[in-house]
């Protein structure tokens, strides 16, 4: 008995259009790959690896993801880990997990509930069991289910023996013992050998799902290149796990999830996380603009990986400056922008708060600058490793004075690449700071990405000012730093080193045109309105609405909720309920047709991982009775949950 059968409704997460779901479960005769055991075909699987934060669960998940990507499934991942580097061992707060959803068709989320849970210890079981549906498979490391570790998380009796797991398909495996046994000839201490138990588990799961193994073995040898004995021990543990699956009777069935060939357009693909895609987007933006990329940043979770990644690519002319604080990070980026670089600062919500004054200066100086905010739970330090979308209003309004800043938000991990290029386009074209609002879920989650050809990338080249742009009454040719392009309202970008264009700019209000200090009331009124008009006039594409059935209810979101919202919409349509969907990339300015779109529907539902920030903006701007549906538990929405909410809205 296994739960690994997709119900039609679940399958609809992935089914594109109205085409009915394809395969639930198919049996295929035992093949050579299955070692004589039964092999079943599945269309999709959700696996969750869970263990102590020192157990290497993120690495295990990453490796399984790479194997799955290499195999050609569509996939979506959800790493979930505590803020502490090594939380107290064996405790509930110390549990780290990695969920992976993979399929033979296109999917949108890391999945609501795991079909398989790997629990490395009692804490991992306890922390995750509530998410596991009845009938699902649970692989349990029995070695850890001794008195003390169980008592630590409140198990008075062993759940392996007291019948409390009767509703699940349990595979008790002494992972630690088996790993140590497999490595007994390696001359490692017991402690060292035990460390490889995650690779044993990975090997077992790789067998269960017919994953290619060469990539992981190569990876281990590369990772431990300086310690070949450790590398070989890990490879041996990995193989032992595989062989264990193939030989032991407890695992009678293995599963195949075919490559998602039909889900993907033609092209070359790789797996990519949001922060990596964003980093590449920034490097590509510098390239396409013909400008050196300059990152000023201060380490902060979950944005630091962008700093790490960019600092590895100095051969692209990328300068990374780890500043003394958040303020200096953006200050240096702005200074570099004054000098003609593509200036970027990367941070999370608390860092944005510190950078606010400098963002205001950039608004006043009208220099291009990218502010990348990888949002996390707030307020204050909040939940550093958990996701949230609660910085929207901070990005929109969080400065003194009227200081409009364009906002761009990616919708999936891979989309962070294109969103970074789009943010750079706006910054460079309109000479303005731009917010790029990603979040922890996008940052750490990953999915397949079709690698674009360079010809597909936008042309971002800019022309620096190179001579006078104004003629005075007496015929003198002069340079006016605030004389604007009549179309974009952008001011000229005159970089130091250009003879004859010496000018001074600052945070004090400037006279229109000349840029000289001006306290004139009428001029200030004009300048405030002009800066606003410039941002309002930024060219952004119209909002596309997906509404095949002429629905009366619209669901509209922004950022990382795209996956779960779309999955929920597919479920509803599959069950015959019409619902329209739209998703915002541009939050400032909004697309020109947004008001018209909103007014077209009787009901507008706005799911957000905050307390209704977009809904507030929509209601204020367009006077629509938008319904807010919110969640701030540090986790992405589940498709099932959103489907229910939308169904209620439709039936209201």
């Amino acid at each position, binding site marked *: 008995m296994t739960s690994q059968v997709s119900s039609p409704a679940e399958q609809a997460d992935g089914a594109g259009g109205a085409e009915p779901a394809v395969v639930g479960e198919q049996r295929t005769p035992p093949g050579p790959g299955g070692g004589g055991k039964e092999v079943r075909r599945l269309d999709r699987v959700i696996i969750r690896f869970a263990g102590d934060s020192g157990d290497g669960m993120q690495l295990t998940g990453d490796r399984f993801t*790479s194997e799955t*990507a*290499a195999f*050609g499934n569509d996939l979506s991942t959800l790493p979930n880990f505590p803020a502490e580097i090594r939380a107290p061992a064996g405790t509930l707060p110390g549990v780290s997990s990695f969920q992976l959803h993979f399929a033979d068709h296109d999917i949108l989320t890391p999945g609501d509930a795991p079909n398989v849970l790997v629990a490395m210890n009692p804490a991992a079981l306890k922390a995750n069991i509530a998410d596991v549906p009845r009938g699902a498979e649970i692989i349990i490391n029995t070695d850890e289910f001794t008195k003390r570790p169980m008592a630590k998380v409140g198990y008075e009796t062993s759940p392996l023996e007291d019948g409390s797991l009767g509703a699940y398909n349990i595979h008790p495996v002494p992972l630690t013992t088996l790993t140590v046994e497999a490595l007994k000839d390696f001359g490692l201490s017991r402690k060292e050998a035990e460390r490889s138990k995650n690779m044993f588990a990975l090997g077992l799961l790789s067998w269960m799902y017919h994953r290619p193994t060469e*990539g992981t073995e190569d990876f281990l040898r590369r990772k431990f290149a300086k310690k070949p004995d450790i590398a070989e021990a890990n490879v041996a543990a990995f193989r032992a796990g595989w062989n264990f699956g193939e030989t032991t009777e407890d695992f009678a069935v293995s599963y195949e999830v075919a490559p998602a*060939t039909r889900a*993907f*357009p*033609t*092209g*070359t*693909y*790789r797996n990519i996380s949001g922060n990596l895609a964003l980093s*590449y987007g920034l*490097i590509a933006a510098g*390239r396409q603009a013909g400008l*050196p990329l300059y990152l*000023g940043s201060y380490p902060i979770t979950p944005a630091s990986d962008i700093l790490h990644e960019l600092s590895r*690519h*100095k*051969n*692209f*002319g*990328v*300068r990374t*400056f780890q*500043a*003394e604080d958040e*303020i*200096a990070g953006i*200050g*240096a*980026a702005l*200074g*570099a*922008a*004054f*000098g*003609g*670089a593509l*200036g970027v600062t990367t941070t999370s919500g608390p860092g944005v708060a510190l950078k606010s*004054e*400098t963002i*205001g*200066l950039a608004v006043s*100086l009208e220099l291009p600058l990218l502010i990348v905010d990888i949002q996390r739970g707030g307020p204050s330090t909040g939940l550093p490793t958990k996701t949230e979308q609660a910085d929207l209003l901070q990005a929109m309004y969080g400065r003194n004075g009227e200081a409009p800043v364009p906002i761009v938000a990616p919708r999936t991990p891979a989309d962070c690449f294109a969103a970074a290029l789009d943010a750079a386009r706006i910054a460079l074209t309109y000479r303005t700071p731009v917010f790029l609002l990603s979040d922890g879920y996008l940052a750490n989650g990953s999915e397949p990405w079709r*690698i*674009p050809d360079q010809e597909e990338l936008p042309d971002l080249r800019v022309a620096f000012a190179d001579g006078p742009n104004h003629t005075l009454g007496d015929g003198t040719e002069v340079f006016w730093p605030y004389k604007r392009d009549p179309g974009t309202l952008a001011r000229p970008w005159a970089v*130091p*080193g*250009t*003879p004859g264009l*010496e*000018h*001074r*700019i*600052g*945070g004090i209000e400037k006279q229109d045109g000349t840029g*000289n*200090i001006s306290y004139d009331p009428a001029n200030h009124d004009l300048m405030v309105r002009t800066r606003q008009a410039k941002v309002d006039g930024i060219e952004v594409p119209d909002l596309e609405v997906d509404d095949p059935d002429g629905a009366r209810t619209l669901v509209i979101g922004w950022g990382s909720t795209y996956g779960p919202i779309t999955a929920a919409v597919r479920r509803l349509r599959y069950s015959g309920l019409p619902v329209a969907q739209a998703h915002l990339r541009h939050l400032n300015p909004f697309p020109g047709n947004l008001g018209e779109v909103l007014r077209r529907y009787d009901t507008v539902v706005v799911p957000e991982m905050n307390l209704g920030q977009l809904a507030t903006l929509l209601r204020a701007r367009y006077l629509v009775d938008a319904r807010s549906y919110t969640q701030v538990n540090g986790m992405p929405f589940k498709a099932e949950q959103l489907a229910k909410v939308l169904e209620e809205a439709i039936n209201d």
Partner: protein
Amino acid sequence: MTEATDTAGLLSLVPRAEARQSMKDFKSDQEVRWCPGCGDYAVLAAVQGFMPELGLARENIVFVSGIGCSSRFPYYMNTYGMHSIHGRAPAIATGLATSRRDLSVWVVTGDGDALSIGGNHLIHALRRNVNLKILLFNNRIYGLTKGQYSPTSELGKITKSTPMGSLDAPFNPVSLALGAEASFVARTVDSDRKHLTEVLRAAADHPGTALVEIYQNCNIFNDGAFDALKDKDRAEEAVIRLEHGQPIRFGAGGRKGVVRDPATGDLEVVEVTAENEARVLVHDARTASPTTAFALSRLADPDTLHQTPIGVFRSVERPVYDTLMAEQLETAAAAKGEGDLAALLAGNDTWTVVG
């Protein structure tokens, strides 16, 4: 025109002016708006007068400032300039200087801007040794906000915000800079044009961060704060002029000298006699250790300013951040080749979907 002692060759990265420049070339068209009698005028004139000496292309010079009276400075220089926000000029200038080594970047700041709200950026710029020249106008008061005490005001200072006297001990900017690993630290006085210019010259030549503290009179809110160092009768006894390679002597006829206390290693001022004359310290700004420079910075009485050394305390060469950063880029390009975007995006693990 002096020969630059620019051994690290950093000034040589900045393009030279094609024609001979004069002070006039460095005056912007903006009306100077400091209070009449402000010490800032003298500093501005000294800087404008000194700039032609450098012979650098005007368009490759940038003045960056924060907030405060002195931070209006860039508006009056006919170079590129940015009047930024309070305390952040060193951070902004760091971004500019590290990304554009062909620029000569100057920071103009004050005691509140640099030592209070911007203290963090100042110490980190100094520690990194970014190629910046920082002019710290110290008037020991908040002028632009109309007269509150500053982090360099003497203890017990009566101001609008401290009617019963300030409670916090002042910073000594020179001591602070030395403690922050500064490679060049000097002090000068607004009214001494010749000395000010000499110090600016030395700062400009220095590869790395140069901090120049300029005692500057605020004639509105803290008038006469430095009279002890300016008054003809008193100055001779109060000011210790540091000159590299010269014995440190001051007072009428050089009757006083600085010697090392053999017991504590600290410095003290003594009446020079035939007996102790040989013990008078010879100033060595280029010694690797900042210990003696620090001891010199502690000689001044923070209240009366008696025994205030002026001149270059320390001028040593050590690796410059911008240079190291540029070298890393070159090294990476040499090792891995110029960045190949297509290869980067593809990575190592790809698969192909054919239609």
